[in-house]
């Protein structure tokens, strides 16, 4: 009797692994096939299921050439946009979490609602504002819009984080003659480093991957970020089916977020979960 219960347990575990392996194959397959294609010379690309006869790096060179400038643009757009979004989120979160005032729930609710407004519903006015202040097709235009979009998310996460910092810390600081403004810069922000870092990772991923605003607010090769450049490359190469260089470009385009994810898995996932709690 005892051996039988063990074997059903083992059977269940084996079944679990079988399901998980099939599922993971499904999730990994597109990555593996793209990598496989990226390493093949043009005449082997159509032989999809075969491995490359030799490691051919020409596709990576061609793909990199097609999107290198836009990757630089993305870095120059995403980094300031993320940092400014965190700063403004911290500005709003500080009074919400620590100073409590009349109507703070209303402000909180508005911020929360802001998180859920699909960009496509406000895309036309955003485009017109940015165009009218002369920031269409510039880095600064996207900094502004990304900052605005990050602010409600950052407010929410940082409000929840600041709320865990004991009031005594502030009271003690005030007794020592530290004003409320100085407290924010000198104490609150430094003790929140881990949360701020998680926020940066979150922003970095969403803005590196952002498409519709980037498509609407940029036009030229000098300013368009990597999502837009990759989209152009897809359309260009789909007729002539240059899958090799395209997959080379895809590998470069997704490498930054994948590397950040693999390095900071915990913060990455915790940020996601924290955002929606």
């Amino acid at each position, binding site marked *: 009797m005892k051996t039988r219960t063990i074997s059903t347990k083992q059977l269940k575990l084996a079944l679990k692994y079988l399901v998980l392996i099939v599922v993971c194959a499904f999730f990994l397959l597109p990555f593996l096939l793209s990598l496989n294609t990226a390493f093949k010379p043009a005449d082997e690309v159509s032989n999809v299921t075969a491995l490359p006869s030799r490691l051919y790096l020409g596709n990576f060179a061609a793909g990199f050439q097609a999107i290198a400038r836009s990757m630089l643009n993305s870095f120059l757009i995403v980094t300031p946009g993320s940092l400014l979004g965190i700063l403004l989120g911290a500005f709003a979160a500080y009074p919400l979490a620590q100073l409590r005032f009349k109507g703070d*729930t209303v402000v909180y609710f508005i911020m*929360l609602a*802001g998180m859920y407004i699909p960009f496509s519903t406000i895309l*036309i006015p955003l485009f017109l504002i940015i165009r009218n202040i002369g920031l269409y097709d510039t880095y600064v235009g996207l900094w502004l*819009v990304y900052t*605005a979009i990050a602010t409600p998310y950052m407010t929410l996460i940082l409000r929840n984080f600041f709320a865990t910092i004991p009031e005594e810390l502030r009271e003690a600081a005030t007794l020592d003659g530290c004003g409320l403004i100085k407290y924010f810069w000198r104490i609150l922000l430094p003790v929140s480093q881990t949360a701020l870092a998680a926020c940066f990772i979150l922003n970095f991923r969403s803005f590196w991957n952002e498409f519709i605003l980037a498509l609407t607010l940029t036009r030229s090769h000098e300013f368009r970020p990597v999502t837009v450049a990759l989209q152009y490359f897809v359309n260009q190469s789909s007729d002539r089916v240059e899958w090799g260089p395209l997959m080379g470009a895809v590998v470069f385009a997704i490498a930054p977020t994948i590397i950040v994810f693999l390095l900071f898995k915990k913060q990455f996932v915790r940020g996601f979960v924290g955002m929606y709690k």
Partner: protein
Amino acid sequence: MHIKLRTEKKITTILFLSLPFLLFAVFYFYPIGYTIFLSLHEWNGIAPTKTPVGLANYAFIFKNYQFRISLGNTIKWLIIYVSCVTASGLGLALLLEKKIRGSALFETIIFLPTTIMLIAAGAMWRWLYNPHYGFINIALRKLGLDALTLVWLGDPKIATYSIMICAIWSGVGLAFVLYLAGLNNIPPEYGEAARIDGASFPQLFRHIIWPMLAPANAVVIAMMALRAIKVFDIVYVLTNGGPGYSSSVLAFFMYDTSFARGQFGRGAAIATILFLVSALIIGPYLLYSVRKVEAIR
């Protein structure tokens, strides 16, 4: 001293909230109002004057062929995409709730597609779906299932579903981690007590796990519904709304009308409809989560 502190608090609050508030006013409140305003006008985006046309833009849209297809597809996304992502996310979270050897690796792999840009996901899947050299059709042919080899993105009847599969591939990871966090929040004593009482897994699921997962369910469903309403990138890169308009969705229709055809009034009307649809779906969730926050206080 006490009064001084209160004044300082007030001043600090106003000081710190002013910049975020200004940003909100310019980039959220004003755009929503302006979208509604513009939806009552005819404008090409360049001309100095906007002609008021009353509800003509809405009348035009409701009679429009592409609108009906787009609305139908958005509803399909809301039903099929949301239920598939939610169910698979929950299923995988239940499988990996208890740590087994290799769970960290499985978790990483399941979440991996969520980390990459949808444009890249689309590029990869376009290659998989290629009717001649794509992996899917070639694999099907090799398995002798020639009847199942379809023109995945070129057949108007199935294009939307093909896009959805790619979106599900990239969306399951998010539902999965949210459910995993939800399951970890259930105190283990509940499950142990039930197991000692001899409850089977279906009983355990129905009477303990499912009710305790209510908050996670609310979050996941609201999140995924929002993603379904927002769907744009992946349609743009995989089919550009085609063949014909067959895979167009509301967000794509809005972009196409305003920025490709320069009909900003009509585009704004579609944006307003989109806003109402999302408010209808997200509104209840917002009220629910604010009540939760109030309760915690």
